[in-house]
């Protein structure tokens, strides 16, 4: 019997731990920062996609009318409803308005639903032209639809003493882990990454902003940059998770992604992933930021 009791206790403790992990109170500023960062970065993705909207989603585009009925879950794919130029333009304009509304904190859940519907639709219709930042826009859009919507940092004001459950932030944390760990898992067996040559080759490729043969002469520096990229990617989620190393993680992650935005034609990826770091922030992190801002303000 004592064994059964201790087993029950252990089970109860495990359930409580899981509950605490998903439903403990979070700092509402983390949700607010994530929402604002997501809205701003997704608006940039929309602007980036605007010149290609007819090529990818209109009847007059490269793939003609988007077929409907292929995917049983695709009823809400708005580009299967119509492929007229006016409809495609309207979808983009309405989504842009929803993104502004989301960023300002007005009708948060409804705005998130509009944005998620657009992201899911364009990813389904234009899967062949999809990039990692499109996936982030879609998946985080879904998380915002199901997450708490605290009235913090909105144009409607701030409701005091809100402590929303943390589960939405946990989902984003898992997503960040998944992105970085999966990419390292897939890169690690590649001979170019193994030999430390991936960055020099990338810097001469079609995706580089300033391709130049000088990158072939980076030598050991090229290897250091290649291995450092892998090291940062594999450690970043854990650095962000642990309080003691969180700011180091933010510094390394932001530096790496700003570096990518400067040297590669991949600015949207930087814009899409950096706001996700706010999902790791706790009260003490926002307090530290606020105190830093106060200290740097002119007296």
């Amino acid at each position, binding site marked *: 019997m004592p064994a059964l009791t201790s087993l029950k206790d252990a089970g109860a403790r495990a359930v409580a731990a899981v509950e605490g992990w998903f439903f403990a109170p979070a700092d509402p500023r983390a949700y607010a920062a994530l929402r604002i960062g997501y809205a701003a970065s997704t608006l940039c993705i929309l602007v980036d*996609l605007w010149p290609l909207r007819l090529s990818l989603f209109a009847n007059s585009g490269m*793939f003609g009318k988007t077929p409907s009925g292929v995917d049983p879950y695709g009823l809400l794919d708005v580009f299967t409803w119509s492929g007229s130029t006016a409809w495609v333009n309207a979808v983009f304009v309405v989504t842009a308005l929803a993104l502004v509304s989301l960023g300002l904190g007005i009708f948060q859940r409804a705005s998130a639903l509009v944005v998620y519907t657009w992201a899911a639709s364009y990813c*389904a219709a234009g899967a*062949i032209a999809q990039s990692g930042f499109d996936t982030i826009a879609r998946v985080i859009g879904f998380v915002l639809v199901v997450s708490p919507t605290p009235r913090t940092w909105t144009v409607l004001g701030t409701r005091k003493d809100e402590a929303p459950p943390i589960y939405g932030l946990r989902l984003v944390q898992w997503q960040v882990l*998944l992105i970085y760990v*999966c990419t390292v898992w897939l890169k690690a067996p590649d001979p170019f990454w193994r030999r430390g040559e991936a960055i020099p080759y990338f810097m001469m*490729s079609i*995706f580089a902003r300033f391709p130049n043969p000088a990158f*072939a002469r980076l030598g050991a520096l090229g290897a250091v940059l290649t291995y450092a990229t892998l090291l940062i990617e594999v450690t970043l989620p854990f650095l962000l998770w642990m309080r003691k190393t969180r700011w180091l993680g933010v510094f390394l992650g932001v530096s790496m992604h700003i570096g990518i935005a400067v040297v590669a034609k991949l600015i949207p990826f930087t814009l899409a992933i950096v706001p996700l770091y706010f999902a790791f922030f706790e009260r003490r992190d926002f307090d530290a930021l606020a105190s830093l801002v106060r200290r740097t303000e002119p007296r």
Partner: protein
Amino acid sequence: MANVSRTTALGTTFHRPFETYIDAARLWQSWDMFTTIPHFHDMAGALVAFDDQGNITRYGPMLPDLRPLRKDPRIIGAFLRLAFVEDGYAAYNVRYLRAVCDAIATRSGKRPAKVGFELYTEELRSIQDVQRDNRIGERRTYPFGPIACPR
């Protein structure tokens, strides 16, 4: 957990219980960006239309309006998938062929008999070769098709 890599010896058994939820919520994802080096330093392309007499006319591959290939990472990715990736994108090839045949018919007033695609690339040369002569890319053309235009 459902998004853990599908390329392991575990296969997809692990993923099956989650697939309905993933599909319904549109949460599929893959993080295989730059898992190896990009192979090209530069890229362009053209549609090659053949009429019934075998005469050839070249057009830009982007619709609407048969414009030249735009060097946007999304478009580069799309054409590389159209050209080299079979899995998952075959339907796009069929739709692209139909769309370009229609667009060429509208532009020229006559439906082409066949349409092919030429991908003009500058393939990245090895680091050692670039070190020798400072030339990053080697020109290479990949021809695809021609395929009969659907009526």
